[in-house]
């Protein structure tokens, strides 16, 4: 079964340490084959195993009576009443977007959509959080334009409305833009499907695009297995095919509705390897795959390449034995390529065969849960000390307050994002009641009075200055954005974008941020139900700001009580809720006007935040508010200005 001789150099090039290799030998009771080494290297990578972040992620609160599915599945699920549930997740596609912005961002949207409909839910909304360098640089404008059009083209073609998001510009993202894509679906409780290979003997079916050489990570070196020619042909860019994905969406939902399958999963990172091993291990079963049956785009692909390929728009389905004919009829109706490539076994082993030769035999559980976990060293960043010596008194009073307000309103991070969201179809499915531009998007649910509100928020500068307080403040901001719209915050999906975790200063940021996020999630009763970690985000080998982005969903008992952010009519009274104390630390004013990033972010009082949310919900429920707007970047002045001019058909003023 051995192919290439395993050498220490090959092991290192697979990103595995000597100890990890020894653990593999102990698990297998022998030396691994080359294909097995590739499979372990991908499944035990940071991206798939979370081996550095898992000990910290376990601190997140993930339980609540309304949580039907917490972290660990393709996406998280929360009950919203009337037998309905919302499925939600956010994913990052930062590095591919830095290489090819259009395709990188597009395939990011494609991936997050699949995570939702593989749970059996119809995707009903997309949001995204984008971060770039300085807009004055041509490269940044290029990335910005192509990332936005990549997201637009994919989402629009899929017929899923992009209803909200945020865009920030900060020097630290110059070479490493952040592209976080969030998707939300809706489902009846009884239709929920888990990504598990249950039912020994059930057929394992491959459906979707053919397998190519694209995106094979891990070692890129010459050996018998990877000829120079194939290395050259291995484009590191995956191309999105939204049309095939639309067919996959409709076919999958039809299969699920007719109860023809027991499990379904997207072939995402590490493609066939992660989908088969994760589905097997969740069900406590094994899977045997016959690779000669895998539809492929290139001739002469090796088992190693087939198992590690990350071609897009492919799914693994575990059908119910006996329903093969009906399943295949649905794939034919939607003109989809498919093939039965294996079956579920009861020995808990992932067995990879081509013809009658076995290339891999690995306990599935060892792949999904066997990776060692690491306790990284954490150390307070040196910059913190110096930045906290900030005395707001030495900031001179502005000579011309009007000019300051105009400068803030025209700074790219605050300015209107209409140029961006006008490229997104935010109306398809005719459910979008509050369109992009307000504090949160609100969607109605047909045949029900319920409404759901969605937002995605982040404030990297606060976390840069104090990861703990910063983490708390973005949970509160997301919750406030929902509450001002009249929705009760329910749950969080998080995308944790950080630098290299092996640097102690970065790991300090990561650990403190998760603590802050956890504390606020606990206090505001918004548990984390899904998420994603993206490490190694560096710009000119300097880590980006610690940037968690928080997707949050809220529910409205009566969607007609939704509240928007713009003033409605002259003569209305303007109230400021919450403590009006003044903090300049980490403010947009300090950065934009004085070019300073310093001080500490405003302290967060979680009990008063909870009271504020309850008050806003009460006011909305009683239909007392004509509008409500959250104070965030730029503070009170910017919030007032926005409320005056947001509604272009009814521009108003305000006397304070």
């Amino acid at each position, binding site marked *: 079964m051995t192919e290439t001789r395993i050498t220490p150099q090959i092991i290192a090039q697979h990103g595995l340490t000597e100890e990890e290799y020894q653990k593999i030998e102990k698990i297998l009771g022998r030396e691994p084959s080359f294909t097995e080494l590739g499979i372990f290297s991908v499944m035990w990578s940071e991206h798939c195993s979370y081996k550095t972040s898992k000990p910290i992620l376990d601190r997140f609160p993930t339980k609540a009576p309304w949580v039907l599915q917490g972290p660990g599945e393709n996406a998280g699920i929360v009950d919203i009443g009337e037998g309905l549930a919302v499925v939600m997740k956010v994913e990052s596609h930062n590095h591919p977007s830095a290489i090819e912005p259009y395709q990188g961002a597009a395939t990011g949207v494609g991936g997050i959509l699949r995570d939702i409909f593989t749970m059996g839910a119809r995707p009903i909304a997309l949001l995204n959080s984008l971060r770039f360098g300085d807009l004055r640089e041509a490269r940044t404008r290029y990335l910005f334009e192509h990332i936005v059009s990549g997201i637009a083209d994919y989402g629009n073609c899929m*017929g899923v409305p992009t209803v909200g998001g945020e865009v920030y510009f900060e020097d630290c993202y110059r070479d490493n833009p952040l592209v976080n894509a969030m998707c939300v679906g809706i489902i009846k409780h009884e239709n929920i499907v888990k990504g598990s290979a249950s039912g020994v003997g059930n057929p394992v079916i491959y459906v979707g695009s053919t397998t190519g050489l694209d995106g094979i990570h891990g070692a890129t070196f010459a050996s018998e297995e990877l000829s120079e020619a194939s290395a050259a042909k291995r484009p590191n860019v995956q191309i999105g095919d939204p049309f095939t994905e639309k067919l996959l969406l409709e076919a999958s939902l039809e299969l699920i509705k007719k109860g023809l399958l027991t499990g379904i999963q997207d072939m995402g990172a590490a493609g066939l390897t992660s989908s088969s091993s994760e589905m097997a291990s969740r069900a406590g079963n094994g899977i045997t795959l016959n690779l000669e049956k895998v539809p492929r785009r290139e001739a002469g692909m090796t088992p190693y390449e087939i198992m590690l390929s990350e071609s897009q728009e492919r799914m693994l389905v575990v059908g119910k034995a006996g329903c093969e004919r009906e399943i295949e009829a649905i794939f034919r109706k939607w003109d989809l390529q498919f093939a039965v490539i294996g079956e579920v076994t009861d020995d808990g082993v992932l067995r990879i065969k081509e013809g009658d030769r076995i290339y891999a035999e690995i306990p599935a559980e060892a792949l999904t849960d066997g990776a060692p976990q690491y306790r990284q060293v954490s150390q307070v960043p040196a910059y913190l000390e110096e930045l906290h010596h900030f005395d707001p008194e030495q900031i001179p009073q502005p000579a011309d307050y009007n000019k300051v307000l105009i400068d803030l309103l025209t700074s790219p991070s605050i300015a209107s994002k209409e140029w961006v969201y*006008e490229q997104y179809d935010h*109306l*398809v*499915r005719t459910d979008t009641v509050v369109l992009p531009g307000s504090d949160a998007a609100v969607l109605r649910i047909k045949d029900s009075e319920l409404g759901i509100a969605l937002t995605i928020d982040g404030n990297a500068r606060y976390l840069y200055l104090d990861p703990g307080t910063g983490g708390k403040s973005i949970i509160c901001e997301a919750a406030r954005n929902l509450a001002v719209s009249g929705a009760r915050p329910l749950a969080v999906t998080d995308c944790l974008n950080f630098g290299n975790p092996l640097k102690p200063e970065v790991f300090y940021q990561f650990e403190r941020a998760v603590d802050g996020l956890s504390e606020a999630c606990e206090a505001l009763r918004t548990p984390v139900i899904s998420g994603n970690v993206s490490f190694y985000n560096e710009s000119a080998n300097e880590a980006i700001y610690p940037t968690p982005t928080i997707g949050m969903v809220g529910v409205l008992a009566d969607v007609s009580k939704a509240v928007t952010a713009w003033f409605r009519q002259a003569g209305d009274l303007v109230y400021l809720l919450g403590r009006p104390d003044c903090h300049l630390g980490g403010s947009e004013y300090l950065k934009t006007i004085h070019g300073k990033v310093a001080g500490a972010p405003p302290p967060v009082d979680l009990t008063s935040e909870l009271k504020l949310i309850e008050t806003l919900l009460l006011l909305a429920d009683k239909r007392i508010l004509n509008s409500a707007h959250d104070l965030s970047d730029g503070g009170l002045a910017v919030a007032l200005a926005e409320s005056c001019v947001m509604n272009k058909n009814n521009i108003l003023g305000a006397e304070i």
Partner: protein
Amino acid sequence: MKYGVVVFPGSNWDHDCYHVVKHVLRESVEYLWHEKEITNGFDCLVLPGGFSYGDYLRAGALAMFSKIMRSVKDFADRGGLVVGICNGFQILLEAGLLPGAMQRNKTLKFISKFTPVKVVNNAIPFTRKYQAGEVLNIPIAHAEGNYFASDETLKRLRDNGQIVFQYCSPEGEIDGASNPNGSIDNIAGICNEKGNVLGMMPHPERCAELILGNDHGLRVFSSLSS
């Protein structure tokens, strides 16, 4: 009234047209899969918006070859009512049921926003319940809505009153400033000579209920009922 909503692989707005007809208008409606022949008993066919075949090659280019298009043509020739919305309009143009062609928006960008549109011809079955010159505020959402027609086609459209909708300013002015995509003559919707086939880029099904902003689009459908 019995409606048939045609579903191509890649259609997205089929759900929404179906919803408006069934739940808002309370008329009977069925989905028609693109590989089926149309049986009789239908009064109006809706070709919905979306990205049929991913809009690969050209918007609507590949959908034209679906089996159902032959019977859509026969249905139209017999005087049946056919409305093509956005991608549906592009398919009608590719299939030759309506004259002219669509090109990429002048901004080369996808545009999604509420847009003022003027009803120029209120004498066809789809626009009977509008006043002539009425300004509607209807969402558009497309990347290829830049309508082109040769000079003689344009002349024929004008002479026969086949121009049904034109982009305009909120006050009803038809000028360059109020043209979102570069469409010739600000054309947003046209019909065939008999007036039983309508193609329009704006989405009436997206504004057929007050909760979505306004119900200006509803009368494109309700005009057909008595």
